């Protein structure tokens, strides 16, 4: 980890978010979640509990899922972060996003960004997961609307499209 430079009570953090260099002055206790939402306006990253219980704040840090409410902004210094806003490339949706739409896996949508990013990390490390593996990968992402049925279908459909 690159240590953040300290300026009085504040720290300078530099990180790459969705392919772009970002820098900010943060407090020691600022979370990555608040940094993303309040400083950089990536509000696609949701806040559901701030305790690591719901997964709504899931982002990818160096390709791995983290609950951004449990990561301090200073810990993200020097790392690469992907939020939901980073999946769409030149107006083209990621296959997972498309399948979430096609399979009607989105109801209120509050869990969707975290859910899609957990699935993204899964498909990167395991392009052809079983249903059980899909369920395990999103086991920390709570959804109160869908019963997960269509979310699991969407992720499996996106994996299918990989082959």
């Amino acid at each position: 980890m690159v240590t953040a430079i300290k300026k009085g009570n504040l720290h300078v953090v530099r990180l790459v978010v969705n392919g772009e260099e970002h820098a900010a002055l943060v407090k020691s206790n600022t979370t990555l979640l608040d940094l993303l939402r309040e400083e950089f306006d990536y509000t696609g990253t949701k806040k559901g509990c701030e305790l690591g219980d719901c997964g709504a704040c899931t982002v990818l840090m160096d390709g791995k899922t983290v609950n951004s409410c449990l990561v301090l902004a200073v810990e993200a210094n020097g790392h690469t972060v992907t939020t939901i806003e980073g999946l769409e490339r030149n107006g083209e949706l990621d296959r997972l996003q498309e399948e979430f739409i096609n399979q009607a896996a989105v109801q209120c949508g509050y869990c969707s960004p975290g859910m899609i990013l957990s699935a993204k990390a899964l498909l990167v490390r395991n392009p052809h997961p079983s249903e059980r593996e899909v369920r395990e990968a999103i086991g920390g992402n709570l959804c109160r609307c869908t019963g997960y049925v269509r979310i699991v279908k969407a992720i499996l459909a996106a994996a299918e499209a990989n082959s």
Partner: protein
Amino acid sequence: MSETSTKDFSVIGKSVPKIDARDKVTGRAKYAGDLKVPGMLIGKILRSPHAHARILNINTSKAMELPGVAAVITARDVPSTFYGISPARYDETILAIEKVLQVGDKVAAVAAVDEETAVKALALIDVEYEVLPAVLDPLRAMDEGQPQVHPQYERNISVEIHQDFGDVEKAFRESYVVRTDCFQGNRATHVPMEPHAAISKWENGKLTIWSSSQSPHYFQYHISRVFGLKMGDVRVIKAFVGGGFGGKLEPSAAEYVSAALAMKTGRPVKIVFDRKEVFFHNRGRHAQHIELTTGVTKEGKILGVHAKFIIDGGSYTSLGIASAYYAGAMLPLIYDFDHFKFDGLRVHTNLPSCAAQRGHGAPQPRFAFESQLDMIAKELGMDPIEIRKVNARQPNTTTLNDLKVNSCEFTACLDKATEISDWAGKKGKLPPGQGIGIGCGGFITGAGYPIYRTRLPHASAVIKISEQGDTATLYIGAVDIGQGSDTILAQMAAEAVGINYEDVRIVSADTETTPHDFGAYASRQTLMSGHAVKQAGDEIRRQIIELAADLLEANAADVDIDRRVVFVKGSPEKTLTFENVANEFFIRKGPLVGKGSYAPPKLGGKFKGAAVGTSPAYSFAAQISQVEVDEETGQVMVTKVWDVHDCGTVINPSLLHGQVEGALFMGMGEAMYEQVVFDDKGKPLNANLGEYRVPTALDVPEVISELVDSYEPAGPWGVKEVGEGATLPTMGSYANAIYDAIGVRLYDLPLTPEKVWRAIQDRKKLL
């Protein structure tokens, strides 16, 4: 019906993608907590650490001095008007005036430049309390000598209900079997993934609130009343809503307090609840204590039912009066019987307030009824499906409490569920430890009456066609909280006008720009808002047809529109495009607009409480579950669930099945693990998502959701509800399946491994 079924429609009946799905999967959708208004402050609420206490003094001076704090308010700084949502029972105030009535009650509030400063300021507010004895046990709350929660509700009785239909004593005398059983429900709660959030702005005497709301209309009505403003000076705008399930039907402190702080500071104020505050605000399921007596003939025909309830209302009334009535009012819906007695008592305790949650007061009584019906069937040596078929409601009948049922394919639901689950091959034939059980349900499609007395229609809509005729915009006050109303109403608009789904834009739920609608509760929008949309669409269609007839020199009666083609029936060469006609209309006559509104007919009987349960239409459902029980640990695994629904014509099959699946999982959580628990001081012990367990993707029953053909004459295109009814059958079907698996009967929700294990031990002792 399969997901691709189209019947004769062009746009409805198809699983079109959700109108807002792209915004939601890209993170562009803005929920209230995501919005930023220039100059905005952050508001925080100081909440009571005590369940019941007198506020002796509040000292805010230190908090005021903290740099970055713009305002600190207590009850003295805000209107003292009592509010609520059950008329005649307004008993809550913006901030506690004299007493706090629960842990988490609202005591003071702060607006500051950022969240950290606001939280620091809260810690600097000094409150002196005189702690009072608290009432925590609903079964004793009405006893003499118990502390009074509200001075005006003697013996803590919030509402007392006695309804008596026919002669239930006589029915019991004539019965072959009469059974009395007691059941206990749990204090479950909605857990929308998005906590309550609002931003209030006060400018030029006008209050604007962006909110996570199920009903901008009720918000506008109550907020203007409390602050003494004209309704027209309060604008409530629904942002994207991250789930509601009943918990966002009335304004919460997020709105009231942010509005008060905005008025005080002159700056916009945002309040977002943390998860704990969502538990404090609650308004979730009442825990019901149910004593149920049912008498049946030798053939299994139900003759009479006597249901007694004591339900724990918690601190404030909220919508709890209706919840108390719903507990009994829905019992005579799905099975037909003539004699019914309903005694209900809702009591106040010093715990968070309970109100409406998906299925309103009906799921726990339904659990009790479905469980007891199975016990009766066993005594009679009847198959559980058979006893349900003997009593199943039939179409075009009226219940003993004057609920008029039009379409009803309940028997078909039972037949189909029996068939697709292979009930005959499984019932009594599964290996030890495995079982199969049935539970059923039925629910209203919108309440027959609004929550407060008004002559406003229940829903209204405006459709405006663009000047070029290429798009249509539907303006509607109906509220999409995730269930997909924006999508299905857009489908309906397209169908009615004669254009494509892709042509429709929607502006929904802003009290200033969209016409009135009561919002998302009681499963009302597909039917009620749908009617308004159909009428608005029909009006446009009529205007287009008239002009086209002129242009094509044809008879208006012969002109029709389908998917943007305006044509003369029988003369295929005579066509015009929709945009040509619409554009011409604008040139000649100005805006092409259609409007519609809907109010249900006068419904229900004359007795006290007769309005509760009335509805233009009712859904019906049968659910069969298969479980595996580990007798060593008491662990129950639900392996497969078959749900068959009668919900009228389907507008969007994917969204409809999504409702069933979601409701079923919610029912599963309530059945198996959900329960808010408190310590002996009334402090919640699991007000977080780690310890209040909701189902995860790993709780895996396979769900088969099926429909039966049905057409509801009271609905536009034959529609009726699905969103709430699907929560009703689940608990009973699990309890019955567990009985089938291991021969133990569970009476208390949730059906946790510990309770299953204890019941197994008790049974062993008896053997």
